[in-house]
Structures are given as C-alpha cells and as structure tokens.
C-alpha cells in the first residue's frame, strides 16, 4: 500500500503502543484521513501552520508568565499540530471506566467523612486515611448538596505496550487544563479547514454549558437567578487564563478572595451597588488557602468564614473541600478495592501496580528493583519530586532513598509504564513522542457526563516519559470519533 512520505520516514519506538502506526506497518484506519490530508501539504505548509498556531495562542493571550529577574516573560504551552485520535470503541470503554471509578470515589468520600464503613470493614487501613494531609476533619459529617463531592475531575490515563488503558492518577481537587481542550480544538479548526467534519470528530464545546447547568442545580437558594462565581487566586496564577475562559464561557462572575466577604454565615460579593449574596462558588483555590480562619491562617487568597457558610449550607462549593484524601497517591492503590466494595463490580480501568513504601516488605522490593521503578511523593503533583529509576544516577537514587527512609508514608513506587506514543510534527517530519490522556468528567445531580475529548499531554523531549508542562511537556488536540 502506498503511504505518504511523512509516514514512510516514521520510526515507531520498539515495544511501545503507537496510536497511529499499526501492525503490518500500516497507518491505523482512524488516522488514515489525517495522514492523507497532511501528505498533501509540503513541509513548508506545515511549518506555516505551526507558526500560525503559535501566533494564535500569543495574540489570544493563551499564555502563562514566567517571572525572571523581575520581568514577566510571556510563554505559550507548546502545541503539536497533529491531533491525537481516539476511536469510538476506545472512548466507550474509557467513558464506562471513568464513570464507574468516579461513582466509587464519590461514595468513598461520602463514607470517609461520615460512617467510615470502609475502614471498619478493614478494606482500607485506618492509618492510610488518617496520615493523609488532605484528610480534613473539618469535613466530618458536613452535608454537601446531593452528596456530590467530585463535581469536576480529570482522570489521567496512559496506555501500556499492548494498548491497555491504565489510570495513572485521579485528579479530584481542582484539575486544570480543560481550557486547553477547548482552545486546542479552536486552533485545529483554523489549521486544518474541513478536516474535523470529514473525520467525524465529536464536538467538545458543550463543556461549559454542562458545567454551568450543574453549578446552577447546586444553588442552596431556590431562586431563578442564583449568583454563581468562579473564585480565582488572581492574575498571577499560572492557570489564570483558564479561569477567565471558563468564567466567560459560562457567563459567571470571576472573583478573587478580596471580592468576597462573609456575614452571618452567608457569602457576599462587593459590588458597586453594595453587597450581593453568592450561592455557588466554583473555586480554583486549594483547600489550604480557602479559609484563613480554619486552614492556613496566612492565606490572602481565601475568604474568612467561608467554611462556616459552607457548613451551614448557605453556599455550595465546587469541588467539595477535602477531596484530596481520595486522590492521594497512597489511597490510589485501594481504588480497585473501593469499586468492589461499594459497587460490587470488577474495575473496568486498571490501576498501575503500586507499592506503598510505608510498608516494609514493599519498600525492600522497590529498593531492590529501583531501576525499573518510578517513585513519587504521595502529595506531589506537576511532575516535581519524582525519581525515574531508569534515568537516574546512583547518587540521585541514594539521596532519594535517604529522603524515603525519613518519611516512608510520603512515597509510593510504580513499575515504569511505557506510555503510548503518537506522531508529532517536528522539523519537517513525523516522529513518535509519549502521550497521556486526561478526559474531564462532570458530576452533577443528574449523573456523570464526560465531554468526548480531553487533554492529551505529550513529552516533547525525545525518549522522555514526563508529560507535565512544567517539565517540557506540550499538548495536542484530542479527537474522539463518532
């Protein structure tokens, strides 16, 4: 079969699942139209498209600022123009798996902050829960509207060498990146006219309206026009662009902590015509900074007294506070057990095998096989503080071991998973780079909805397995086919 020049030069990585390059050295069917389309373009044309993408991100201010020697430098998140494509079948599987997992995790949060049956029945050891810094006693017996804790989540998925999906992480606190799902699609529309409808790509534009509908349904006051706000830490936050995008797309007010005030257990915002009561807060401020009276007393980003208003049920907060106990990396290992315990079902999506370094036998095993392991902090994120066993020097490993021994509960280890690869356009040719997938799930009173798409992050450095944007990662538009 005749293939394009771009495809002929493509070298898939050995022993790694390739999203485009199938068995028998063929383009997988769902990638064919895209490959055909780009093979009609010269490298020059594709370079122009790459430039156009950069300019669009820049002129729309889809940037984050890096402060260097007192001067702000605008940067864009690197974007690869070749989309990542997911078939209808793969998506149906992922969707079912995420819904199942979230249902169980939400039940877990309800349980762990009330009766704690799962501890009493010995499914999860009590010390795993109580040693977790994100387990907040302030949430104990606090009634949240509709018993929903995880209104918005981003579950990180990866694929092993045989294409099997694994859950790498559950992000249940304030997952970010959804604006890139939306913006990347807008950019693709500009880069490849007509290609999206030709390929039958499902739309992602419903996300803000579903989120808005869910927020509206949470209002404690039964009035026709409740006040919904998005609470942001402010313009210096690296995700500020996302906060403004979501506020704009939903038509809700974007507020900062200093715009809000609590009086008599009700939350108000300060307007030019006096105080106006707030009903629902979609907050992008971490638990710790939310209420200086209850949590971190030095926080300038939060609102004094907001916890009291929440406890009284006068304001709905999204996501619920204290969700961190459910996406803690040590608790992660128990999620398959949770699914069996609460739902009496077999887990659809697999967990990556996880070793608790707080447990001596497992620690010994990990230390013995450290070259094949990834060690992470249980409360870390953003790819910081990780040890990639296969890519570290003896000295680094030794130093890291010392850290572990000081506080073994703070660490877990997982065997190195071979992230799947997808073609990226680089210097005039297609070349494979490792990717993951973060679909965004919205949990409302009427159930869980997942917009068909998500954020595909890509490790742009050759051979790298770290997709985090803080570690040289970029992103791709993510297509789910109808």
């Amino acid at each position, binding site marked *: 079969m005749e293939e394009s020049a771009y495809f002929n030069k493509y070298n898939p990585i050995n022993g790694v699942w390739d999203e485009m390059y199938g068995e028998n050295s063929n383009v997988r069917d769902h990638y064919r139209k895209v490959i055909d389309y780009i093979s009609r373009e010269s490298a020059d044309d594709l370079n122009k498209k790459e430039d156009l993408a950069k300019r669009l991100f*820049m*002129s*729309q*201010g889809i940037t984050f600022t890096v402060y260097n020697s007192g*001067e702000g430098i*605008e940067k864009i998140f690197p974007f690869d123009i070749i989309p990542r494509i997911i078939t209808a079948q793969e998506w149906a599987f992922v969707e079912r798996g995420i819904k199942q997992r979230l249902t169980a995790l939400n039940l877990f949060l309800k349980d762990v902050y009330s009766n704690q049956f799962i501890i009493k029945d010995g499914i999860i050891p009590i010390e795993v829960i109580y040693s977790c810094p994100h387990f907040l006693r302030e949430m104990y017996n606090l009634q949240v509207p509709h018993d929903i804790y995880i209104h918005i989540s981003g579950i990180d998925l990866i694929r092993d060498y045989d294409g099997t999906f694994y859950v790498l992480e559950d992000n249940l606190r304030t997952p970010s990146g959804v604006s890139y799902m939306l913006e990347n699609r807008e950019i693709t529309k500009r880069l490849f006219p007509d290609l999206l409808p030709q390929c039958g790509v499902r739309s992602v534009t419903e996300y803000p309206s579903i989120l808005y509908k869910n927020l509206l349904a949470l209002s404690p006051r039964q009035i026709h026009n409740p006040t919904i706000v998005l609470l942001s830490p*402010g*313009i210096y936050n690296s995700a*500020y662009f996302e906060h*403004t995008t979501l*506020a*704009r797309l939903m*038509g*809700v*007010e*974007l*507020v*900062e902590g*200093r*715009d809000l005030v609590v009086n008599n257990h009700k939350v108000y*915002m*300060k*307007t*030019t*015509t*006096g105080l106006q009561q707030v009903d629902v807060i979609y907050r992008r401020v971490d638990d710790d900074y939310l209420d200086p009276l209850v949590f971190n007393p030095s926080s300038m980003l939060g609102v004094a007294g907001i916890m009291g208003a929440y406890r009284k049920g006068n304001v709905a907060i999204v996501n619920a506070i204290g969700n961190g106990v459910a996406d803690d990396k040590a608790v992660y290992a128990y999620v398959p057990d949770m699914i069996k315990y609460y739902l009496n079902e077999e887990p659809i999506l697999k967990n990556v095998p996880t070793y608790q370094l707080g447990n001596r036998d497992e620690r010994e095993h990990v230390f013995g096989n450290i070259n094949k392991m990834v060690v992470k902090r249980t409360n870390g994120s953003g790819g910081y503080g990780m040890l990639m066993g296969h890519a570290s020097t003896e000295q680094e490993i030794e130093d890291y071991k010392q850290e572990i021994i000081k506080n073994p509960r703070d660490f877990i280890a997982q065997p190195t998973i071979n992230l799947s690869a997808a073609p990226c356009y680089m210097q005039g040719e297609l070349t494979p780079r490792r990717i993951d997938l973060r679909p965004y799930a919205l949990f409302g009173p009427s159930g869980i909805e997942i917009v068909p798409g998500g954020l595909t992050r890509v490790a742009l450095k050759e051979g790298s397995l770290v997709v985090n944007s803080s570690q040289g990662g970029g992103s791709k538009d993510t297509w789910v086919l109808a």
Partner: protein
Amino acid sequence: MLSRVAASFYWLSRYIERSDGILRMLKINYASSQDTIQEFTWEPVVRIFAGLDDEEAQTLENDTRAVLKYMVTGKTNPNSILNIITHARENARSVQEHITKDLWQCLNEYYHAVKDSRLERALQREDPIGILDVLIKQVMLYYGTVEITMERGEGRSFMNIGKYLERAIQSVDILDMKFVSINDNPDLLTDTSYWKHLLLSLGGYELYLKTYREGFEAENVLEQVVLNNDFPRSVIYSVNNIQRYFDRLKNDNNLENFREMSFQIGRLQSRIKYNSVRSIRQEGLHTFLTQIRGELYGIGNAMNEYYFANS
C-alpha cells in the same frame, strides 16, 4: 458589578487614554524638533509626562533619541508606553470575562507590539514618526473595538469616566506646559509654529483653522482647548462626558454616594462653563488650570472612595 471590576475598567481606560496622549505629544514634539534652527528642548515633556526632576530632565533634554527611548520603552519610567500598556493589560486581564474577546486580543496585540525588541532598535535608527504612528494606530484600533463590540452597560460607563477624566487632565497639563514656557520666553507668544504644534499634539489644528481666521493667537488657542464644546479634547467636552456617563451609574442602592459625587462633578462643570477667556486671563491662567487640575484629581479620589473603596 464587582467594585474591583469597576476599578479595573476605569484604570484600563485611563491608561490607554494616557498612552494615546503621550504618543501624539511625542510625535508632534519630534516633528517640531525637526523644524527649528534653535536647539530643541524636551525639558517640559519629560518633566510633565515622566515626572523627572530638573537635574534628571537636563541630562535628557537635548537628546531626542534618548527621550524617545525613555518615554516609549523605558523600563524605569513609570509613565513609559511600555509600563502603561503593561498596566492596562493587567487590568484587562483581571476583567477578561467582562470585555469582549476582540477587545482582549486588540490589547494583547498592542502589548506585544510595544514589547517587540525590534521596536526599540527601530526607535533608535529609523523614522520615529512611522514607529509612533504604528502604536497610535493600535490605540485607534482599541477605540474602534470598544465602540463596536463592548456592551453599553455599567462597565462602559466606568471606562468612559476614566477615559474623559484622563483626557481632561492631559489637556490641562499640555496647556499649562505650553503657557508656562511662555513666561520664560515671551518671544514664543508670537511664534506661529509654537501654537501650531500645541494644536497638532491635541489633534485640534484643523478645527482651529476653520474657527479662527486671524492666525494663531494665544487667547484663541486657550478658548478652543478649554471652552469649545465641539472639540473632543477640550476640557469642557471631557467634563461634560464625565458627567454624562456618571449619571448612568445612578442606582437606588447607592444614592448617597451618587449625590456626593454628582455635586463635585457639577461644580467643576459650572466652573468651566460659566467662564470666558477674559475672566480666565484676569484670574491668571496658571491659577485657573491648577484649580481645575485639583478638581479633576478630586473626582478621581472620590471615585476611589465611593465606588472602588472596597477593592
């Protein structure tokens, strides 16, 4: 509307108007510097628009390219176009969901145009008028975008109050600067090109030619810049507009503050409206302008107190 948002609208607008005033003033002063056989001095410009003291101003005053660099891309000058547009954009960023996407992109492009490292180089080597024109166009684009895309709500009222307040202050400043220079050098009083450049930097040259047939007279210039209702950069035109947009903020929940401010604005309006060139002359132009400037600052402070105090 959130008080913080209202304040951001107001400041965004003030900063943009200020950048417009400074760019036009630089352009005309530069043209003027090419049109004189005496050594051209930038001293009044850097003193008034960058707040430099005499000593600092002296080191710059005769070096046109250094002044341009300092006024446009100077990092240490709080009123450089670079710093002004950075502030404007930060204000816009914090109210991004209240302004249209078009407006945000337009501000962004303005910002990137000023940040571009090629601009600084070009300012040193190429024709400054061409470069200043590129930036002036960005401001015009901004005003067009506001006009076409922004909703006619509370936010726009705050923007307009900021815009006209800034404009009135600028006109007063430029006028004061020009007339103070005359005290030092009375020959300027009869210097046609001196008045011509003043009018050009306010964009009022054509109107002046149509209104007055007897050439350039200081009194006529004064009349146009302070009292002409049809001149968009006159002090009275700006104050009338402050009042017009302020009236739209009337709201039952905030009546007391509204009345307080309304009184202040009305007083200033009458002070200018019921005045003539002759009475201003009698009073002394500098005294008159100083008083007006004081009143304008007073309005700015009152806005802060009554409408943005929460922030």
